[in-house]
């Protein structure tokens, strides 16, 4: 005996009204600052969101007078997904990290990107990018 759904099988997630919800912050020549959430994405009601990829990068573009740790990270539902600390005062030193498919966010959950730089003087470039796809739950 075959068992099926009268109205047909449920569509795959990528066919359920998918929408790109990319989030990005690219700051150049950023001076030292305390921990700051550069972007927030909240999953709307009735949706879920696939985290397709995430990328973070820092570049020291001006040396600091006194070096302090500089951090960059992406947080899913307020937990670390990807994070790096940059503790190198060499001009153009770079720290980067990336991850691929990282799971699904439920309605009301968030994806946030944050930066900080505890140095005195100097400047950094920060890039935080997440590729998100939102679809009907």
């Amino acid at each position: 005996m075959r068992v099926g759904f009268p109205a047909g099988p449920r569509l795959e997630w990528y066919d359920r009204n998918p929408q790109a919800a990319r989030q990005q912050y690219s700051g150049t020549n950023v001076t030292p600052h305390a921990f700051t959430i550069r972007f927030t994405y909240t999953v709307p009601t009735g949706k879920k969101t696939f985290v397709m990829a995430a990328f973070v990068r820092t570049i020291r573009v001006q040396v600091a007078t006194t070096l302090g740790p500089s951090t960059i990270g992406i947080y899913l539902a307020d937990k670390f997904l990807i994070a790096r600390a940059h503790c190198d005062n060499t001009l153009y030193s770079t720290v980067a990290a990336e991850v691929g498919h990282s799971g699904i966010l439920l309605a009301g959950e968030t994806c946030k990107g944050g930066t900080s730089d505890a140095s005195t003087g100097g400047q950094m470039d920060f890039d935080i990018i997440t590729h998100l796809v939102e679809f009907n739950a």
Partner: protein
Amino acid sequence: MVKVKVKVVGSGTEADPFRVRLPTYSMVPGTEEYADAEKKIFKSVEVEVPDDECDKGRPDKAKIRAKYRGQPLWDRADVLSDI
């Protein structure tokens, strides 16, 4: 996306980071204004907000409450009262 200037809240710590009281936003680099420039305490910043959360160039309470219906943080009468 709609660009708007909004208030920054928080104290810059891990537990209470500088942030904006909107469900979805992205800060526009270089638009930060400081309450205390020496201590780097943010006062305001320009952010980009999705079109479907705005009306007449500003974040709209009714649209945000509808989009995030049932979510305690955003589906409330005083949402956007302090941005």
